[in-house]
């Protein structure tokens, strides 16, 4: 783990849904659901968060964010992947229309 500031991956968007936070990696069309209690923590990444400043209650979530590429160290770019994003769009499969 590096020691710089972490910010949201530039492809990450999120919003509150009914009972949870929906986090989307818009480049790879991957969705994650997060408990609402982490909304404020997510917002902190706009300014940048140092791992050392993360409280005990958020530490495991911080590490998950790193592992899932939801956050990246400031200045770093997420790695490109060759994958079929259309497969992830449920409406593309138009069920024998």
């Amino acid at each position: 783990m590096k020691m710089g500031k972490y910010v949201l991956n530039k492809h990450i968007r999120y919003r509150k849904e009914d009972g949870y936070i929906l986090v989307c990696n818009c480049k790879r069309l991957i969705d994650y659901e997060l408990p609402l209690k982490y909304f404020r923590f997510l917002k902190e990444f706009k300014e940048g968060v140092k791992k050392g400043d993360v409280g005990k209650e958020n530490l495991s979530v911080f590490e998950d964010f790193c592992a899932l590429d939801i956050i990246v160290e400031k200045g770093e770019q997420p790695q490109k992947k060759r994958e079929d994003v259309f497969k992830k769009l449920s409406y593309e499969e138009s069920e024998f229309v």
Partner: protein
Amino acid sequence: MYVPPNELTGKEWDTVFKDLVTNNVFYVNISGGEPTVHPDIIEIFDSLKNHQLHFILTTNGLFGSKILSKIVELEDLLIGLKISLDGPDYLSNGYIRRDVKKQINEQEFNRTLKNLRTLKENGIPFTIATCIHKGNINKMHVMMNLVLDLEPVSWYISTISTSGRSFDNLEIFASDSELEKSKWDEIKRVCAENNIFVNYIDMPSASAKKKESKFFYECPAARSFCEINSDGLVSPCPLARVNIPSKYLKFENIRDKSIKDIWNGKVFKKFLDLSSQGCEGCEVKDNCDRCIPQSILWFNDHRFPPPHCIQNAKKLGLKNQKELKNLLKQKMEELERDNYINIK
């Protein structure tokens, strides 16, 4: 160039995109018709960039160098690029993709190929979309070789949907059952060996697998997805816009209301209500988001089960199975799609 009346202008799309981003919409799928012939397409692309709105683009690949450069410029926001290519040569590709004079045009085929090769050289991932019809159904293996050469991320193959304009051109329809199942399987296998994912859409014969579980619809329309048509009309999905008459649902326009108000409005609520009313006797109706547009398309009545459910009527426990099957057979004959679905 002819621009259909009442289409949203580039400036209006900018207002729409702003509204979408304000309301936390994550991304859009720009398709058509052919979106790249919109007179303000560059302005539309720039608007996506200004609003940092991720997008998917579905196109015929006939665009010129200015649009191609813009696509490369916007790669960071580009989620996926789907390009139509129907055949391995200009005749099969142009069979249903005519030029503005309704002619099969060799230059247009060459231009699409050139753009695909340029995208490949620039490392922009793309997907090839092929629609099967009478003009290409027997050239699928030659087409596969071209696809292997172009190295898309994926290859989507579909049939022509029996709705909208296709009603006037039923003679061009080809069923996937016109090619042996083993050939479809081989295409999928060879492409997979070359890291190309093949997806058969609306092709029950090609994609058939023995399923133990009971089929039911899990539809994202009006739940996590909706369509904004080029004239601003907002509907749960394209099929709903095309097939549901206004006596059922009168869809609203993004020019008049915010996406938030339409999404939470009474029309979308009614659509959800209709689609959650399961079919009589169905054992999985509590889980099913029934496809209302299909029921209306085939039977002019939202209460009828869609064709695929009728095919599985016994497994699902539907009532009046014999009557439903006879009615569907009759409709398939009427629509000249008697090979559409296999009903015993």
